[in-house]
């Protein structure tokens, strides 16, 4: 030790040294690595988009795509549209949303505003479990309930029920997070005005978290609209238009894709597969944009 302390003092350092060469090299290495990761992450995405757009855009320009069904059109024939599948997907998504959103928001409000103790922990745990359920399990569960136990037909409403199981945990999680972001101060400001708790939640907390909640709902919907397993198990495909969720088969974009994929060696079917895929992507995009616009309503104009 004595040797160390008595060694000659190191040359005095400047306080603001310039970056050392080693640090500069490490910095460059890290930057390159990050950029590479970004590229690797983006590549498949761009690739998918490119494939879908380049192969699917052709049919979308055709007005019959948006207005006609596939009724009477075999895989060998060109023509027909995706109207039956688009409407089916939208109907099922709407039913799913109408059922899931109140349940999910109610649960999130309970967990954030009221939930204490064991029951709340149990609910949180159940939501976690639901989040991890594979879609085919949700579908089989509804099948066991709807078809086996109750003896009902396989109809699109049952599909929506399975989708509800998948959508609720997503929306609960995101809504919970948004509600927790609302500062305590705001709640207290409202209580201090003599506003009861439930009214504070409805009129102050929810509006403040509104845009975040809407974004969460849109994410949940986007996830659910592309789900295929529940459709395969509970929602048989049809090439005709059907708007009744409680009677008869109803088409959806994923099952439409699946139908024509069986014959993808044939050009007309091959084209329709990609066009339907692109349509699904577009619908999800339009919904997200609508969600953004909707969430603007919640805030005061600047």
């Amino acid at each position, binding site marked *: 030790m004595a040797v160390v302390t008595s060694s000659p003092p190191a040359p005095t350092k400047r306080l603001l040294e310039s970056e050392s060469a080693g640090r500069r090299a490490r910095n460059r290495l890290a930057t390159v690595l990050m950029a590479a990761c970004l590229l690797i992450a983006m590549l498949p995405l761009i690739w998918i988009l490119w494939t879908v757009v380049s192969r699917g855009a052709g049919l979308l320009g055709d007005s019959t795509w948006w207005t006609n069904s596939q009724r009477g059109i075999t895989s060998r024939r060109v023509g027909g549209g995706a109207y039956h599948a688009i409407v089916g997907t939208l109907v099922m998504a709407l039913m799913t949303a109408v059922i899931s959103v109140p349940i999910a928001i109610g649960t999130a409000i309970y967990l954030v505003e009221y939930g*204490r103790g064991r029951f709340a922990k149990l609910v949180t745990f159940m939501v976690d479990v639901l989040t991890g359920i594979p879609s085919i399990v949700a579908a089989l569960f509804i099948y066991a309930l709807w078809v086996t136990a109750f003896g009902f037909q396989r109809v699109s409403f049952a599909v929506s029920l399975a989708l509800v199981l998948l959508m609720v945990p997503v929306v609960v999680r995101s809504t919970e997070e948004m509600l927790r972001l609302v*500062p305590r*101060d*705001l*709640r*207290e*400001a*409202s*209580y*201090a*005005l*003599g*506003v*009861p708790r439930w*009214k*504070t939640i409805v*009129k*102050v907390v929810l*509006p*403040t978290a*509104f845009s975040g909640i809407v974004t969460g709902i849109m994410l949940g919907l986007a996830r659910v609209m592309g789900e295929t397993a529940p459709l395969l198990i509970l929602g048989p495909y049809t090439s005709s238009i059907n708007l009744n969720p409680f009677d008869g088969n109803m088409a959806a974009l994923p099952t439409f894709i699946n139908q024509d994929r069986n014959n993808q060696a044939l050009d007309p079917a091959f084209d329709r597969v990609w066009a339907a895929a692109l349509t699904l992507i577009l619908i999800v995009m339009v919904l997200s944009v609508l969600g953004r616009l909707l969430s603007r309503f*919640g*805030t*005061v*104009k*600047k």
Partner: protein
Amino acid sequence: MAKRIDVSGLDAFYGHFKAVEDVSLTVEPRSVTAFIGPSGCGKSTLLRTFNRMHEVIPGARVSGKVMLDDENLYDDGVDPVAVRRTVGMVFQRPNPFPTMSIYDNVAAGLRLNGVKNKKVLDEVVERSLKRANLWGEVHDRLGKPGSSLSGGQQQRLCIARAVAVEPQVLLMDEPCSALDPISTLAIEDLIQDLKDRYTIIIVTHNMQQAARVSDRTAFFTIAGAGKPGRLVEIGDTAEMFSRPAEKATEDYITGRFG
């Protein structure tokens, strides 16, 4: 219609931790009472027991009596929501509702309690903003978001929001601590104007402010970390600042402590 507050034998807890012990004091109506004392001595906690805001924190509870004229706030059957309509509160950080316009912020207390008549609301908004000395600055942009105002304006907006529901008592927890000196003066002037209508309690760390705005001052202290805060003395502000009865008070206000 301002009311007198009579506190006796009040303890306040967070779970098992006793934050305030055995406070008894009287707050006179139509006057300003300042609460001073070192950080952590329970001023905010005590203040929040006066409008039953303490109990919104999970595990928090209160024992003792807080009389508002002749009603005990902690009697069985007293609705905390009704208490909060009678005893208004202004917070340390300005907290206007971010989704609401200036107008809606001031009208919030009435609207959320079911008043819909536009004429009544218009009148209340104008009167409250005038009382908060803010009307002149905002009357031509009532539709703008409350958060578009400066910090000092926001705090006056919060005061307008609090007085709009016609409380009897106004509690202010360090209302100026986030504000610049000019806005602070504006709020101090406002407190002077408001005191002929309301009973006002203000928590402050600023001795000059306590001396400037208050008629009476209560000094609290704490024996050490983890110990509960206690009231040392309460009295006429001028008296207390010139001839404090207790050594601890003298040390604190002359800056030898805390």
